[in-house]
């Protein structure tokens, strides 16, 4: 059996797997044959992070790959969150024994090729053609109330920037792997990933890396500023748009200083540098305004300190982070679960990378949820931002039809 046949059987089976975009190598990697699956909660998080600190991968497939959910990350910095009455895990990490690299040639790196195809069941596909209606929470009335409350908070200096999230949900079975590759054909994003398990499924076309550690160096690449490609035809034009758009420009400044701050908690004094200020990245429907900031990690910095300083990622929350999270958690009633959490991998303390989970679908117990958030702006109206959230969610909502 050749590699593409093996891949085909694997993808059409019900076996747990993770697909991750490797934007350094411009390909996809599939991780499977999990020897370990860790469900995280506040009680075992510290123990898990301590274990990671001692872990060092010496096989190409060996790593921990998974996510920290938003609620777990908030609790980790002593913030109160809404109770999630479902059994959805607050974070999950897998330790694979197989990695398949999807390149011009398919490469299989595995501990055991016989293990890879052992006991595989064909994935059951429900050809359910019903189009289930999408509901949104908070609805427009509640959204407007929260929006106006946060405007007052901004006027009073209690937050300088705050982003309200909305949840769009429906009920439908999804063919998650095919859906993921369909999405990638249309909207290839550098931090895309897919998780398929018996309990839940995730696809995400996140564009945003929260941090990468390579040796002693840590780099963050916050996005602040989005413009539709309908209106703007070239990267050069997009750059001019971001420069001339006061609101976007100031918001971006704030996020640059916020990320400099978060890096400064865990890096050597005077090592934090803005590598690249305000450059434009092009996507299927939009341009993003991005900056790149780096620093040199403190000697002996703990992994838990890195997680506490950087997560949840500030660019999708607002500023200052702590008080803004308190305001959000008071007003938002829907648990965010994976949304604005972080997905990534850990190979050693010198080699890890985590993104910010946005533009994602979580499929759990036949329920699908998509979140979108946008900032409260003093001279904007609730209706405008409510509509902008819908536009952000639209490409994913199309998949739920």
């Amino acid at each position, binding site marked *: 059996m050749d590699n593409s046949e093996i891949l085909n059987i694997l993808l059409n089976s019900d076996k747990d797997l993770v697909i991750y975009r490797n934007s350094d190598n411009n390909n996809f990697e599939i991780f499977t044959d999990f020897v370990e699956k860790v469900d995280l909660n506040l009680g075992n998080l510290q123990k898990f992070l301590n274990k990671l600190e001692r872990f060092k991968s010496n096989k190409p497939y060996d790593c921990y790959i998974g996510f920290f959910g938003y609620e777990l990350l908030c609790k980790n910095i002593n913030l109160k969150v809404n109770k999630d009455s479902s059994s959805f895990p607050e974070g999950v990490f897998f330790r694979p024994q197989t990695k398949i690299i999807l390149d011009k040639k398919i490469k299989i790196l595995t501990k055991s090729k016989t293990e890879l195809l052992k006991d595989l069941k064909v994935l059951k596909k429900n050809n359910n053609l019903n189009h289930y209606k999408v509901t949104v929470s908070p609805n427009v009335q509640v959204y407007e109330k929260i929006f106006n409350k946060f405007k007052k908070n901004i006027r009073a200096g209690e937050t300088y920037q705050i982003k309200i999230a909305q949840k769009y949900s429906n009920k439908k079975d999804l063919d998650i792997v095919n859906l993921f590759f369909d999405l990638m054909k249309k909207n290839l994003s550098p931090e895309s990933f897919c998780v398929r398990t018996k309990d839940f499924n995730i696809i995400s076309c996140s564009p945003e890396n929260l941090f990468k550690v390579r040796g002693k160096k840590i780099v963050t690449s916050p996005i602040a500023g989005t413009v539709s490609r309908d209106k703007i035809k070239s990267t050069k034009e997009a750059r001019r748009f971001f420069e001339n758009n006061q609101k976007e420009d100031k918001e971006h400044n704030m996020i640059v200083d916020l990320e400099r701050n978060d890096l400064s*908690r865990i890096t050597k004094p005077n090592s934090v540098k803005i590598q690249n200020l305000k450059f434009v990245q092009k996507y299927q429907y939009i341009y993003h305004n991005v900056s790149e900031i780096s620093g040199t990690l403190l000697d002996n910095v703990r992994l838990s300190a890195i997680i506490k300083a950087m997560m949840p990622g500030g660019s999708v929350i607002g500023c*200052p982070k702590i008080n803004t999270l308190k305001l959000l958690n008071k007003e938002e009633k829907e648990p965010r679960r994976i949304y604005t959490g972080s997905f990534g991998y850990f190979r050693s303390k010198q080699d890890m990378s985590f993104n910010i989970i946005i533009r994602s679908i979580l499929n759990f117990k036949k329920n699908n949820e998509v979140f979108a958030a946008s900032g409260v702006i003093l001279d904007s109206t609730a209706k405008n931002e409510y509509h902008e959230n819908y536009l952000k969610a639209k490409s994913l909502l199309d998949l739920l039809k």
Partner: protein
Amino acid sequence: MNLLLIDHEDSFTYNLAHLLSGFGNLEVKNFYDVKENSVKKSDVIIFSPGPGKPLDYPISLDIYNNYKSKKKIIGICLGFQLIANGEGGTISKQEKIFHGYQTYIRTNSQSLRFPNNALYQVGRYHSLKLKEPFNSSSMHITMRCEETNVAMCLESHKYDICGLQFHPDSFLTPNGKQFIRKIIQFKK
């Protein structure tokens, strides 16, 4: 020299910490976690930026009032407003809100730490401002925004106190460290 930076849980405090770190032993403490001992053994107390208004931080106001005549005190943004409040000033909302702005400010002849009539480009993050008229016998407004005339620096002529409404810690303030150096090296 021992520096105590009191953090009001801002997302800019550690930018300030890196600016301060070259000038002595720096301790950063959350405002609700500051121990009397840390305050006592410090030579310089720095009040960080932060959300809200001075009256939201009674502990920091107490520290200011108890130590203003005894130690060098620096306030940044909210810290500036804490100093103003401690000197009887009122903090009020402003028409135009400055979050992430880079603007020009100018010094005046009242300044002891900075040259007269100097123009600086600075980064700003504030919804609130010092309400004027502000009358104090010992505290002087020594820098103002070129555009709105809003107070940007308070200096005491009696004690070793200096507050900045703008952010020397921001990347929007070129040479932010020189502001900190001048304030720290100033001797009454």
